């Protein structure tokens, strides 16, 4: 064998090894959209410090503490950083390190191994009820203003930090000038031809919207009639394009790969306002839900974590991230910036608005998920 071909061959072998290692794992994490022009000054936190020294204006935090805040990254976490973390640091001297890969599994792993490095974690509505009590600290409601939080959005181990809507988003250029009125139109392939984007998760709204499309009232969704939902879903199964996360949903509707999609309202807003795509939201029959802050059990910074959570859910601070991304406050008394109000899910609540029954979804997670998997892989 000639020397040069020998070189090639060893390169081959090395790259085979490298390739073999890389071909197995990893989670697809499509890049998040870049934020558009943003107001530079976080406004909400600048409440006068002269007011009564309570947790909302002058939290008794230990300067120099470093809290680790875990959330979902991208423009979302950036909004939380600008709205909450930076102002809180400035106010108290508490420093933050961040993790952008919040996952229920990681919380479980940290607690089980006794190596808890996350202090405050932003989680979805499918986590943080009593069934997760083994991995979470009960929140300190002597600090958190529980009575000001929207009813149903606070529990022993979690308090909602932002609200959002699971909405019907559609391409205004592909609906022949008609406006889809609700989920029934999502399933109407004759009136609105084209593919449909769908969150690939059994508790992400797929069964709820199918039932609403089939005529079930938003208030009567639970207990879920899954066979009925599946029958309805079968009518559009071949047109469904599943997305694993928000960035992908934004990309699917932006490229026109789908003409309608079940989406999180912030992602639909980004497609329209950041990517400049002809996308609109139908707020009718939105499912209003939230992300929650939790504290993993055994964190050494428990007390400081509680103070920060109490501060971030205060009336004067809670709406701050909504300046940057249209995810709304959870504190009833919180006032978002006026020009942001129309884009928030909480501002678009009406008689048709639905709510997840988190307890039902968590208690029945296995059965719901099994039925979902059996249906979708068939």
């Amino acid at each position, binding site marked *: 064998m000639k020397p040069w*071909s020998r070189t090639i*061959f060893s390169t081959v072998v090395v790259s085979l090894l490298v390739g073999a290692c890389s*071909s197995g794992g990893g989670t697809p994490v499509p890049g998040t959209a870049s934020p558009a022009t943003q107001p530079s000054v976080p406004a909400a936190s600048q409440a006068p410090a002269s007011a009564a020294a309570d947790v909302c204006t002058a939290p008794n935090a230990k300067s120099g503490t470093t809290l680790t805040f875990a959330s979902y990254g991208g423009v979302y976490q950036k909004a939380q950083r600008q709205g909450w973390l930076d102002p809180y640091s400035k106010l108290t001297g508490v420093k933050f390190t961040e993790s952008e890969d919040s996952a229920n599994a990681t919380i479980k792993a940290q607690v089980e191994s006794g190596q808890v490095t996350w202090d405050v974690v932003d989680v979805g509505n499918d986590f943080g009820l009593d069934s997760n009590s083994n991995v979470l600290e009960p929140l300190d409601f002597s600090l958190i203003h529980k009575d000001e939080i929207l009813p149903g959005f606070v529990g022993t181990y979690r308090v909602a930090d932002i609200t959002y809507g699971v909405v019907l988003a559609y391409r205004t250029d592909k609906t022949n000038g008609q406006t889809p009125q609700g989920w029934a139109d999502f399933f109407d392939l004759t009136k609105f031809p084209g593919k449909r984007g769908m969150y690939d998760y059994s508790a992400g709204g797929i069964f709820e919207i199918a039932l609403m499309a089939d005529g079930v009232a938003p208030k009567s969704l639970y207990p879920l009639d899954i066979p009925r939902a599946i029958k309805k879903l079968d009518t559009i199964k071949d047109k469904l394009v599943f997305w694993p996360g928000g960035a992908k949903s934004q990309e699917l509707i932006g*490229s026109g790969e789908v003409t309608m999609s079940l989406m999180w309202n912030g992602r639909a807003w980004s497609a329209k306002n950041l990517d400049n795509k002809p996308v609109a939201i139908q707020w009718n029959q939105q499912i209003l839900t939230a992300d929650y802050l939790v504290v993993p059990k055994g964190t050494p910074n428990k007390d400081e974590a509680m103070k920060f959570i109490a501060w971030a859910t205060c009336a004067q601070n809670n709406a701050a991230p909504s300046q940057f991304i249209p995810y709304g406050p959870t504190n009833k008394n919180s006032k978002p910036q006026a020009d942001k109000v129309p884009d928030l899910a909480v501002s678009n609540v009406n008689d048709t608005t639905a709510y997840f029954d988190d307890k039902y979804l968590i208690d029945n997670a296995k059965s719901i998920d099994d039925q979902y998997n059996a249906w979708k892989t068939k």
Partner: protein
Amino acid sequence: MAVQGRPAARTGRRWRSGLRINRWAWLAFPTIVLLVVFFLAPLVLMAIRSVTDPPNAGLSNYQTFFVSEADVRVLGNTFYIAAISTVVCLVIGYPYAYLMHVVRPRIAGLLLIAVLVPFWSSLLVRTFAWEVILRDTGVINSLLMSWGIISQPLALIRNTLGVILGMSQILLPFMVLPLYAVMRRIDPDYTQAAANLGASPAKAFRRVFLPLSLPGVAAGTLLVFVLALGFYITPTILGSPRETMISRFIADQIQQRLDWGLGTAMAVILMILTFVALALASRAVRLRDVFGSAEDGA
């Protein structure tokens, strides 16, 4: 793989003596420690967890798996898709490796690079590239539609076709390289002799070259098949839920459902079935030739 054979090419004879191996054996020590600590031990812990989570689980996780309609279907999918990918790789890879074998060495080098260049970019990047090419609003469909050849997009993605295209491209080097390694070792005099004895080129290929290349076929097939069994991202991105493979379900159990007992049981099942596949294959081919083809005739 062939790694250990390479640096010794010049001193091959001394390398083979027992004395040398003993003196240098300690070099393998870090590797062995690494394997035990970061591979073997976690594997054992995983297997233990599959029967102890929840406490006193016994075989209940395994039972859960085998009574679940979706789990069994997805396990079947996994082997089905892995098998098709392997066949496609063989059908493309054999002629390709043969071409590399018959052309001048410099051209063979170029062909080798052509197989490998995609290999140097991330699997994710390549999979997303396939998506951009294949989807309804992708390169192929928008071109064909703008030329008026089709009016509706062709179904190239979110089906078995998309998954097989993506996986075959990623796995092709694992087929071509073992094939080429074996073919290179076939003495050209054999086919020459067959021709001298009156065999047509086709017959010489069929009766002489092909049988001699079979160890390469076995090696490539086995390698590609076993690797394909573990695929996760490519079927998720290029397929529909009907093409879901078992690794994806394992990840769901671990990350989303937090059911680590069932998740680890699924992983153990995949591992056992992979070993079964290897055991079956070992009756047809010496595994040593597949995974330790050190003695190439350089």
